[in-house]
């Protein structure tokens, strides 16, 4: 669990401690309601965040809900 992984997060290189998508989110410490995540162009449902293992260079995009018309 203590190893650092380097991924691409929203087009930026990003390091975090852990392996799974849920580890990444916990590391970011951001609101986890109202967000959606895609890993390597695939939407990952919330129920699979804890099981989704990231690898070095994984392309992760996190989206959030904002005001809009």
């Amino acid at each position: 669990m203590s190893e650092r992984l380097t991924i691409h997060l929203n087009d930026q290189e990003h390091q975090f401690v852990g392996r799974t998508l849920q580890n990444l989110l916990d590391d970011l410490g951001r609101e986890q309601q109202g967000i959606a995540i895609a890993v390597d162009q695939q939407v990952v449902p919330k129920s699979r965040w804890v099981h989704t293992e990231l690898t070095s260079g994984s392309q992760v995009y996190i989206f959030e809900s904002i005001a809009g018309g």
Partner: protein
Amino acid sequence: MSNVVIADHEFGSRLFTGTGKYASAETMIASLVASESELVTLSLRRMDLQNNSDNILQPLQRQGMKLLPNTSGARTAKEAIFAAQLAREALQTNWVKLEIHPDPRYLMPDGMETLLAAEELVKQGFVVMPYVHADPVLCKRLEEVGCQCVMPLGSPIGSNMGLASRPFLEIIIEQSNVPVIVDAGIGAPSDAALALEIGADAVLVNTAMAVAQDPQAMAQAFRMAVIAGRMAYEAGLGEKQVKAQASSPLTEFLGALS
């Protein structure tokens, strides 16, 4: 007054609202509460990892409002389908306002891409609410592929120009078997009332409320206009006439004076 039903969900208010362009989250929420709107749109964007954004979801949900994510930013059917899948996860809803505009200057909806995306999203189990030109042929096609309503524009998004597309809206309303929601361009409560008077099932308003000097008061004005418009439609408007028709009986009772 009857309620509007979309995909078996009944709405007590025929005023749907957008959440964009308000000066603050507090003003937005207070205005939407004043509007009594039960369906509010939201957008998705890539999370800003540097800054926390306002949490607007919980206050909206606390008011019992149904959240309607849009696919704003999508330029193609493929992007819109992806955006809809993300939105379904983010907001835990299979409802989506499908909007595809490849041109950022005028934000004109791309009808061909919208039809392609709508067909696929319906197959994937979405309740699809497509934002399109006031094109009666396209609206019929969207209904045929399973859209639960159609959302033709009154005039360009954010233009406040009202129902520039009125003759086409009237054809769409006349032949539609799904609810017709006039979206975009509604600049004043009178525009909203007119849309309802001509038989639209609902309107979606954002800019006109958000940029008013007093958004909360404007929200109330829209609430009342939508009620008035629908009530007038259900009451049955009189026919337009070229010639005058007296409202008082024309009797000769003053004839004695001449």
